[in-house]
């Protein structure tokens, strides 16, 4: 199963690309086609099917002609099952791009072949890199409007590469496409014989993502305590966040530091020998140690930091800016703790990737922030383990999720 997020500016043709992908892969159903045909007429186009309508689902955005919220689409080929997170390109909705990218294995960014790399594409590339998405596909779209010219494609490749070298994305692929006519989306383009790479769908079907998981650092955040008094059963339910745990392994419970062993790894189907991400299991321990939700099990010689202060990259999404001294609730794995902003180290200028000082982070800003968490979180750097390196910030007065953060450094 592969999850990919799509991003691009309004008018770059992202929705058309997805519609084309689904249409050419024969994943669009007849009733959906009928609905598109009907709605395309209402739009006053030239009668051609407006495939973008497939993904613009809400009333408001159909009226406005833009995408407001992340839409999830599902399709499968013989080779792979896909989940598309279609994120809006409008500046105001960057928070939705962050949402879509947070669970993505691959990011697909669209750039209009006629223009220079826009700031919105840079912002998306930065977010993709920050959120640890390992694979990026840049589709240079509307190639028909530049006469399928290889030089136009190469120019964008060069410009984007220059920008992206400073980002930490392992694998970047460029594909020249025309979403409107279907070139290089599913079918290879006959108009661009100079392009020797794969069409988009082939690339998505074959990109290797299995090695992106962390199978080294065992991390088991306790989600619930399961009790069955009749059988004197007490188990700890949760999902393996990273690494592998086996029956009999020595483990330590954090933050208390108590040591014990795993006596059984249980599932509804029965006992298993080992647990690894993303499986949900219930563990029992050999000693009657005190364990509750929010605690974490790991190996004694490989622990996350019991952190009372963290330095993190934060994407701000709230209406009210983040400022030093502000207090939030931080949710990190299964732990919800008080957090206070100690300092804002800097904000990132998305266009240049340069850092600049900031006294506050406003909605859609990205910056490096120091937070104090007196009740501690059990953290790893995000680069090492997404699940134990990520957190959200909640405004306790409104209950809104106002920020997403990625741990870079943690101190006890």
């Amino acid at each position, binding site marked *: *199963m592969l999850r990919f997020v799509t991003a691009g500016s309004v008018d770059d043709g992202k929705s058309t690309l997805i519609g084309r992908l689904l249409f050419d892969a024969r994943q669009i*159903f*007849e*009733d*959906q086609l009928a*609905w598109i045909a009907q*709605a395309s007429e209402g739009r006053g186009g030239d009668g051609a099917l407006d495939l973008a309508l497939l*993904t613009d*689902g*809400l*009333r*408001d955005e159909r009226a406005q002609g833009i995408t*407001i*919220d992340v*839409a*999830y*689409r*599902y399709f*499968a080929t013989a080779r792979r*099952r896909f989940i598309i997170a279609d994120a809006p390109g409008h500046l105001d909705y960057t*928070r939705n791009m*962050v*949402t879509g990218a*947070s*669970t993505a294995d691959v990011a697909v960014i669209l750039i209009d072949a006629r223009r220079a790399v826009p700031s919105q594409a840079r912002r998306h590339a930065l977010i993709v890199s920050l959120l640890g998405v390992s694979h990026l596909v840049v589709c240079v779209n509307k190639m028909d409007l530049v006469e399928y010219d290889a030089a136009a494609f190469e120019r964008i490749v060069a410009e984007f590469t220059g920008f992206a070298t400073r980002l930490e994305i392992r694998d970047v692929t460029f594909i020249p496409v025309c979403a409107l006519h279907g070139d290089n989306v599913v079918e290879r383009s006959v108009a661009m014989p100079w392009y020797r790479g794969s069409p988009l769908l082939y690339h998505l079907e074959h990109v290797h993502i*299995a090695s992106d*998981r962390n199978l080294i650092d065992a991390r088991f955040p306790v*989600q*619930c305590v*399961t*009790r*069955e008094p009749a*059988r004197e*059963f007490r188990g700890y*339910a*949760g*999902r393996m966040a990273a690494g*592998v745990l086996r029956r009999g392994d020595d483990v330590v419970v954090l933050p208390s530091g108590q040591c014990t062993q795993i006596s059984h790894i249980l*599932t*509804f189907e029965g006992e298993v020998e080992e647990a*690894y991400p*993303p*499986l*949900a299991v*219930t563990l029992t321990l050999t000693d009657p140690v005190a364990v509750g939700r929010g605690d974490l099990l790991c190996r004694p010689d490989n622990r996350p930091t019991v952190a009372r202060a963290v330095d993190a990259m934060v994407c701000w*999404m709230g209406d009210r800016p983040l400022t030093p001294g502000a207090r939030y*609730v931080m*949710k990190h*794995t*299964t732990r919800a703790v008080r957090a206070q902003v100690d300092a804002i180290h800097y904000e990132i200028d998305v266009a240049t990737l340069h850092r600049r000082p900031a006294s506050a982070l406003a909605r859609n800003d990205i910056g490096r922030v120091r937070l104090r968490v007196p009740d501690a979180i059990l953290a790893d750097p995000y680069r090492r383990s*997404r*699940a134990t390196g*990520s*957190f*959200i910030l*909640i405004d306790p007065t409104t*209950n*809104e*999720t106002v920020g*997403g953060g990625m741990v870079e450094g943690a101190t006890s």
Partner: protein
Amino acid sequence: MAYEVPHLRALEAEAIHVVREIHAQLDRPVLLFSGGKDSVVLLRLAEKAFWPAALPFPVLHVDTGHNFPEVLEFRDRRIGEIGARLIVASVEATIAAGRVEEERGPRASRNRLQTTTLLDAIAEHRFDAALGGARRDEERSRAKERVFSFRDEFGQWEPRRQRPELWDLYNGRVRPGEHVRVFPLSNWTELDVWEYIACEGLTVPSIYFAHPREVFMHDGMLFAVGPVVQPPEGQPVFMTSVRYRTVGDMSCTGAVRSTASSIDAVIREIAATRVTERGETRADDRYCQDGMETRKREGYF
């Protein structure tokens, strides 16, 4: 390959994680059960999430009074097997109490009335979370739904006010009177649901499988002749082999011609189908392009 997880197992693990989060974060959750295939899967996932302990919260069925009798019988049997506490909220009672008015006319249905009954039940029992089996692939406005979907004190859904959902960190914080609808099957497709049912050996109401029924054509869909729906003047009635792809209530759920009488046959049929589940069989979605979105804003499932 070492540590490879088949996609159905990955979806299952994600759903179990979501169910456990609800239990951990909220005080009074309830599981919405219609007897349909999605709620059958949801119930199994909830069983797995808390095993070996029993389901720690009750199950709620909003009964329109127009349910297929096979579905009601199935509901009672299945809930009895699990030993869960079943609460039935009745749309007929809501109508009798004067809270809503029965629709009239050729397209009358109690579908939309369910919203009031549901919200009343949530208020009466002070539920702060309701788990449902809705999937994102079902319908356009559901494609944008969060896993944890916030509803205000009127039970209403405002798409622009939903909380960003990052990684698998869910924010279920609510104030008294508010509640959150949670959809553990958000990323499952119709095919995934059936494959899981096959894989787990789950039973579903018999109407999902081909059987002979007296039907008539109306609005491009096949409807069963019954106490709730009668054919319009002059519309021919005929006997044919049909099954139901979705279980709504009898007034707005169409049947499809089919000979698929086993789960494997149903799966083959769905894999080859060219029409979506709701497109083929749900009259409630057809009445306007925005049918589902409008109902959701009012507080529908």
